């Protein structure tokens, strides 16, 4: 059975792959590829965050009335990750391999920990509480996530 948040799960993996490509290119000193892959990752990650913040979380909050709990914490972690992505962006621009690797290492663990909380806790809560809207909301999530996927290499 497909769940409402299935596209979100898949998109986590997609972002992971782009992250790994960018990190590997920077480690090899291939800055052209690193810049391209990093920007693809940055775009996809931001799309993911905004899809959650603008579509999924508001729907969850409206249905459950929970505005200060889990979604608030996820928004805070998005902000933490945006800080690190901005740092990676600065490093890519000046081709600072050590700075990029350091921010990437930290982002990776933060991002994985965040994804696990979403996949194990928040998404199942969304699947349960938003089951009645799963058709329209699921399509909306897919559309938002795919729109960017189609524009990236």
């Amino acid at each position: 059975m497909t769940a409402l948040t299935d596209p979100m799960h898949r998109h986590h993996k997609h972002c992971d792959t782009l992250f790994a490509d960018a990190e590997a290119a920077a480690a090899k000193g291939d800055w052209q590829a690193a810049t391209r892959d990093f920007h693809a990752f940055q775009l996809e990650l931001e799309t993911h965050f905004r899809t959650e913040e603008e579509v999924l979380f508001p729907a969850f909050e409206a249905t459950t009335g929970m505005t200060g709990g889990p979604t608030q914490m996820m928004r805070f972690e998005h902000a933490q990750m945006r800080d690190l992505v901005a740092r990676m962006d600065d490093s890519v621009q000046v081709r600072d391999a050590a700075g990029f690797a350091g921010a990437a290492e930290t982002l990776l663990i933060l991002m994985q920990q965040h994804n696990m909380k979403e996949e194990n806790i928040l998404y199942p809560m969304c699947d349960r509480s938003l089951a009645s809207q799963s058709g329209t909301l699921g399509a909306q999530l897919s559309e938002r996530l795919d729109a960017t996927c189609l524009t990236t290499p």
Partner: protein
Amino acid sequence: MHPNLSFEQAPPIAVPFRFFLTAPLFGIAAGLLLFLQGGEMLASRWMPAALAATHLLVVGFMLQAMCGALLQFVPVAAGGNIWRPRLVAGIVHPVLAAATVLLVSAFLTQRPALFTAAAHSFVLGLGFFGTVVSAALWRTPARGPTIVALRIALIALLVTMALGATLATGLARGNQWPLLMLTDIHAAWGLGGWALVLLAGVSYFVVPMFQLTPAYPAWLARGIPLLLLAVLLLWSLQFVGANESVFKLVFLGGLGVGALFAAGTLHIQSRRRRKVGDTTLLFFRTAMLSLLAILLSACVFLALPPVGSDPRAAVWVGLLAMVGVFVSAISGMLYKIVPFVSWLHLQRICGLGTLPPTMNQMLAEAAMRRQFYVHLLALGLLLSAVWVPGVARMAGLVFAIDCAWLAWNLIQAVQAYRGFRDRIRVAAEGC
């Protein structure tokens, strides 16, 4: 209450760190003991100095690090609320450290009062720790193979403790108990139950996270802790009657389950999406290869009875397990946990928009890599020293350097954390 809220109850940074920074000191002590005693110490696992060094490693190094890690891991990754973690760490950490010193002194001096004091201290410290962590682990709303593994590991820890306390009391009173058989059961619950099941449960969580590997197959993740528990229960039937060939099979079965976990881990690591390798991956691979080597060694020992019946065979297996598997895996994990937890705490102190040093700035990859090579050298020398006693002193010294370097690297990360924290505080006061 929603489970996600409890995920934010990470303990104060000093709670896990006091355990993490103490663990390598016991490793240094174990290395120095071998350096002072020389090759004779590795002739048999029953040598008093060998028993002392074993416990410097298993309760000094491993148990310290694992208790600290659980106090961090249970609330953050398993959704379990630890009751007053600062107080728990403030009691458990010094009690375990003191208990270790008492036990090691007891083995070295053979004084009954020290055995009794050590037994009481362990029961006090681990009984308290076990109660608090059990309460958190049995009330967590989280589910899955990691939770099952942590629960089994904790039960195994308490069984190990009970058997250990019985043994220590038996040694203190000179009872005519079957101490050798009890020791085998105690060691199996400690290494194969507590340590290996805990390592498996934590690996299910961190291996995919650190290297972007696929998840462990569900059957493997669920099966390993349950199979190990079944093997340990069968192994404990030695209490009621012993058919030696059956227990040899049970022993091999247990090692086979360990090898299955190792092969599974190496397999998913080979399919990792993260292409950049790091020191933690090298430590983990060393640990998993050592776990496979234990099964291989046991098969060789069974096939070649003259070698297998040599008391040094058990020392070989013990060193592979303690230094090869657990010291390696713990070192690799500390290299991720200490800088990441430091970064997370700094990030929370300074708020968004201010950038604390990244993990690599707190602990450089090159420093970790150099220490890893010393660790490999120490492991190689220790294993050689089992059969070539002449290299034992050098092996002890290199292992002490290995652990001292680990401690030094971790202290560098903590210093970076403190330096940045103090700068934030000064800046905040100036506003």
